[in-house]
């Protein structure tokens, strides 16, 4: 039980190639999915040792029953690709379409990009009517512009200069422009970040300019490089199965078969994000709701910040208390009064089965009140949820410090021969689990804020309260790990994680 799972690098066999997986998070899948994986001999210890994300699934050595893949509401299958792997993958899709439709790669790339890399749909439409497919894809014009001038000279409609006929160039629509104008046009478009969407320069003509035309018109090689980098980005962004890791300066690309709002952790920069929308992972709240919530928080931050200050007075002796740990069960150092940081109520009342503090009580007569009162009530409601959201976010930061303290204490113990590192490993696991539970708990508040009143909200708030209570219990015990019995702590971990799983299972609608 004390044995931590060995860190390892896994390789997955794709039908087309072998791609190195640097993902170390989804250890579970390895157990249940043996056929797909073969373990690599290359151990990359560094990858794991300094890892301290909010979501640590590496809890193999805990007493907690490990959920099976079908049971775990957060289970998500994904692969992490390097740039070259992703490039190869895209190229293979392009080649496959080329050989199937007997077209050149430049055209195949355009078709794929326009149709969201849905090869099947392209082939289907190609069989029905190839001409219409090209017109609908903005690749061929419905009617081609015909040059009826017999002179050897033309006036370029962009620079108004008269040049020889052979200096004018056109794409499939037939609109002619001089080479210099095409060149300048492409340079400016690339500077503005437009590549795969570059259209003909003629008024009301939206025919897309193919890659090979652009590259041959560009006179400066560095623009050709910028074009290929930027268009690669476009292709990744346009591909429903691929996402760039949003981590700063991270070039990892995530691939998942399903475009769902599920948790992805980058193996390189450890950023944890939602596959669908690319921002911080936010279950049980959905992508639209979390966006609404974050916008609201940004808009109202002044008021909310003012109100949710960092200090509070002890409700009994009124000494000013600054919160220095993540736990909401606070004990006044002066008068030893135990109280809840959120509601300032006696903690004894919170110990019981029903933790009331997370549920907002709406004024039942609100419909009859004046507009001002309603506005005040709306603000009160928002602040209630915002305070709890913000409080958990601060607690998470503070618990980061608790983790550092635990690590250094373990170090001391091991140095003084009080057990081995492995003996104290459970403390780190507890801290990891606490972070994970608190993180989920934080993201239950935006969900609750936007929920319609009713039985479902009541159930949600009940479960949220339960989780809230267990998380605070766990936090209290982790902060006092030395004086807490190990069995007691592990039991508390089990209870908290079960509550978290229950809530997610009931409310994660994906």
């Amino acid at each position: 039980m004390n044995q931590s799972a060995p860190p390892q690098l896994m390789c997955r066999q794709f039908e087309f190639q072998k791609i190195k997986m640097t993902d170390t998070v989804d250890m579970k899948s390895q157990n249940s999915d043996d056929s797909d994986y073969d373990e690599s001999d290359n151990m990359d210890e560094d990858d794991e040792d300094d890892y301290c994300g909010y979501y640590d699934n590496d809890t193999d050595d805990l007493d907690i029953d490990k959920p099976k893949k079908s049971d775990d509401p957060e289970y998500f299958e994904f692969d992490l690709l390097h740039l070259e792997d992703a490039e190869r993958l895209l190229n293979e899709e392009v080649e496959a379409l080329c050989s199937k439709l007997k077209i050149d790669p430049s055209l195949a790339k355009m078709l794929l990009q326009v149709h969201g890399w849905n090869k099947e749909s392209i082939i289907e439409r190609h069989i029905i009517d190839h001409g219409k497919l090209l017109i609908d894809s903005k690749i061929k014009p419905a009617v081609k512009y015909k040059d009826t001038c017999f002179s050897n000279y033309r006036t370029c409609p962009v620079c108004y200069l008269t040049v020889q006929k052979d200096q004018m160039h056109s794409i499939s629509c037939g609109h002619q422009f001089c080479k210099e104008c095409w060149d300048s046009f492409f340079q400016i478009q690339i500077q503005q970040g437009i590549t795969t969407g570059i259209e003909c320069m003629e008024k009301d003509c939206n025919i897309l300019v193919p890659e090979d035309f652009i590259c041959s018109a560009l006179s400066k090689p560095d623009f050709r490089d910028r074009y290929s980098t930027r268009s690669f980005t476009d292709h990744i962004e346009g591909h429903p199965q691929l996402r760039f890791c949003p981590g700063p300066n991270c070039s990892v690309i995530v691939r998942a078969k399903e475009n769902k709002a599920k948790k992805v952790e980058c193996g390189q920069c450890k950023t944890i994000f939602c596959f669908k929308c690319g921002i911080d992972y936010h279950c049980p709240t959905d992508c639209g709701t979390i966006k609404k919530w974050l916008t609201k928080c940004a808009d109202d931050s002044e008021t909310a910040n003012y109100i949710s200050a960092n200090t509070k007075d002890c409700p009994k002796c009124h000494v000013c208390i600054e919160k220095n740990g993540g736990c909401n069960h606070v004990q006044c150092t002066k008068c030893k009064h135990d109280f809840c940081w959120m509601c300032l109520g006696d903690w004894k009342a919170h110990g019981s089965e029903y933790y009331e503090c997370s549920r907002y009580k709406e004024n039942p007569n609100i419909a009859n009140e004046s507009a001002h009162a309603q506005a005040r009530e709306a603000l009160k409601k928002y602040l209630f949820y915002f305070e709890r959201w913000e409080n958990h976010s601060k607690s998470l930061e503070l618990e980061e410090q608790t983790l550092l303290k635990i690590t250094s204490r373990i170090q001391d113990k091991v140095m003084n021969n009080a057990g081995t590192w492995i003996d104290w490993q459970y403390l780190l696991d507890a801290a990891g689990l606490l972070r994970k539970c608190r993180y989920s708990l934080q993201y239950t508040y935006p969900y609750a804020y936007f929920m319609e009143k009713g039985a479902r909200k009541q159930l949600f708030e009940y479960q949220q309260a339960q989780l809230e209570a267990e998380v605070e219990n766990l936090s209290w015990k982790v902060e006092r790990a030395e004086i807490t019995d190990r069995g007691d702590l592990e039991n508390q971990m089990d209870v908290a994680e079960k509550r978290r799983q229950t809530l997610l299972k009931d409310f994660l609608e994906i």
Partner: protein
Amino acid sequence: MANIAAARIQREFKEVVKSEEVERCKIKVSLKNDMYNELEGTIAGPPDTPYAGGTFKLEIKIPETYPFNPPKVKFTTRIWHPNISSVTGAICLDILKDQWAAAMTLRTVLLSLQALLAAAEPDDPQDAVVAKQYKDCQEIFIKTARHWTNIYAGGPHRELDLENKITQVMGMGFDEGKARVALSSHNWDIERATENLLS
């Protein structure tokens, strides 16, 4: 790149000046400096619209990347129109944004703006208040637009009842321009307009 922009404007300039449309549709462009990057456009309000008889001036700024990027155009004459801000004169028109094409010219821009005055697109508004009035109370919208054309663009049709209301609100100590905006924005309801001015 700057030389393409300046050279193009010089040639276009001749085109607009020469064009017979200048006479027919009453569009005009004049230079503000010899750098060819700031111009003043003028369009006549199209006939059979509330803008008829008015002359509207536009500020045209030519970016260095012109004609690959659109010119920056806004009304300097105040105007009551769903796609033009009644406050800043900013214009919501697709060809001045993503539908711009390098083969377009100042002439096409001015003609498109004239067409916009004749056919507003209230579903893609720049000024939400005006757009709402345009959709909900056409009649009030037409009177308001005609009044604004008369006051700011030299249009021939006076709206005496609207002028009276402005005088009434001014009698309460408000500035004329503010009174006009408040009344126009509140469908010429004096009570709501003054309430708005006081809040």
